């Protein structure tokens, strides 16, 4: 990847992380850990990959994204706000009474949200339906669905996986955010969904692995995904839960709790320093 483009993406991803912290802090609740692990992915998709237009959020030919791990909505909201789908001031009202930004994505109320989600295991089915729809009417859009690794414990994920491979949905890319942690602990200790790559391969998918926090590797993975015909693609990204805020990294406790005022300051200062260094 061109160094300038990479730098721009890293700057944007840092701003997206600041939006996550801003939203969750002001909401006094939410899910910072899993939101921070997908910020680079979302930045890449919305800035370097997807055909979207913030001025026409419902453009029929747009690429779609379904956040099947809907609890990580703060990251989606932050990238959509950064990209211009709505005012960044909305992030401070996340989860508040009467606010546009709900605790989990609401396609009826939020520009840029392609599917309501939040109940785990359901988003991938809707994404399959959208991909099938594109095939049925010969449209060229792509559908991306982001799933958590813990989410793979939901049986519906595998119903959908069977369906996607059977229907040869090569316009569908599922990204599994493998940060290794779920609410009750390590995924390998709660009810292990491992080995993830073998499972998708056995279900008839083309599987790619990538480093979730390296834009060169992200680009490589998505470039490979576009060469695949006749099969859906699963990208399993190895990520760090809480990535970018040192005291949140790899800590299961930050799955679903908000920072206090002091922690908010520490996190924002850390991200500001990172941003300054990136902007050089």
């Amino acid at each position, binding site marked *: 990847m061109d160094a300038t483009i990479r730098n721009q993406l890293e700057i944007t991803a840092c701003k997206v992380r600041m939006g996550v912290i801003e939203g969750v802090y002001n909401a006094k609740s939410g899910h910072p850990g899993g939101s921070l692990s997908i910020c680079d992915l979302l930045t890449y998709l919305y800035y370097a990959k997807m055909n979207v237009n913030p001025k026409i959020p419902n453009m*029929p030919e747009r690429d*779609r994204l379904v956040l099947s791990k809907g609890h990580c909505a703060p990251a989606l909201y932050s990238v959509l706000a950064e990209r211009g789908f709505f005012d960044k001031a909305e992030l401070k009202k996340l989860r508040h009474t009467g606010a546009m930004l709900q605790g989990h994505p*609401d*396609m*009826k109320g939020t520009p840029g949200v*392609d*599917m*309501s*989600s*939040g*109940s785990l*295991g*359901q*988003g*991938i*089915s*809707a*994404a*399959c*339906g*959208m*991909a*099938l*729809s*594109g095939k*049925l009417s010969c449209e060229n859009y792509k559908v991306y669905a982001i799933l958590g690794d813990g989410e793979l414990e939901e*049986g*519906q994920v595998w*119903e*959908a996986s*069977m*369906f996607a491979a*059977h*229907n040869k949905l090569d316009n569908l890319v599922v990204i599994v955010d493998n940060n290794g942690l779920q609410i009750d602990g390590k995924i390998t200790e709660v009810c292990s969904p491992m080995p993830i790559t073998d499972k998708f391969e056995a279900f008839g998918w083309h599987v790619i692995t990538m480093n979730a926090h390296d834009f060169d590797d992200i680009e490589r993975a998505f470039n490979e995904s576009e060469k695949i015909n006749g099969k859906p693609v699963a990208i399993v990204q190895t990520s760090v839960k809480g990535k970018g805020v040192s005291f949140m990294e790899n800590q299961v406790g930050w799955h679903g709790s908000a920072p206090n005022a002091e922690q908010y300051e520490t996190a924002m200062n850390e991200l500001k320093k990172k941003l300054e260094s990136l902007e050089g």
Partner: protein
Amino acid sequence: MADIIKKATRESYGEALVELAEKYEDLYVLDADLAAATKTGTFKKAYPERFIDCGIAEANMMGIAAGLAATGKKVFASSFAMFAAGRAYEIVRNSIGYPHLNVNIGATHAGISVGEDGATHQCNEDIALMRTIPGMVIINPSDDVEAKAAVKAAIEFNGPVYLRFGRLAVPVINNNDNYKFELGKGIQLKDGKDITIIATGLMVYRALDAAAELEKDGINARVINIHTIKPIDRDIIIKAAKETGVIITAEEHSIIGGLGSAVAEVVTESCPIPVIRIGINDVYGHSGPADELLTEFKLTADNIVKTAKEAIQLKK
């Protein structure tokens, strides 16, 4: 009565889909490996390129339907009521109901008249489940004519619709020129001043039989067919309550949460009078021929007559 035509509403469903397919080119039909039974197989035969078999995976099927609807397709998703409303309830609520997507759920084999398959497949709880989902429209047609009209109304309605069809062949009662289906409007089939019988689905025919029987004993019963259980026709119920002073309801569904509950809610809030519910009394069914089960579980004209006579005693 030898000239009575009988037909299962699931048959009407399959035929109606075919009839609408030409006009609605964006109509797609989904099933979960039950096309032969739900009668979406009729559509599959006529329009194979617009039929999607999702396999035995009802939860995923509802999600697929949501995704198709979110991209502008008109969708009917079919399975037995047990699996469509029961197994897939939460997907219907969160992926279809919450975003208010244009998905029509064609649920067949509803109620005790599934027959020999027994309790696991006899869904007497689907109306109750679907009623709790905000914005969900519920239609339980009484015969072939009404079932076809309901499918047409559903495709023209913008939002989720739950259509309830039966396995058992039931008499065609609405094949007359005056019949008019209006979503959310009950139909008064017979006027009466002593009592009102409000029925839905296959109980409508039985309610008419019961009213004729009551007439012989000098009891003048009004009969109302409620095909749309949600949104319910409050006006026709309140008028009946005021004019006849007592209501009995009849449905092939649990007395908890179905037509009887819906009518009682309207009546207790607006003009309290006695409402007696006939339905499945909070029990599971079991195997047996449909007609025998309907008799055993007292879903008969005879029981409506008996209940009506008792109910009239409650009038003040």
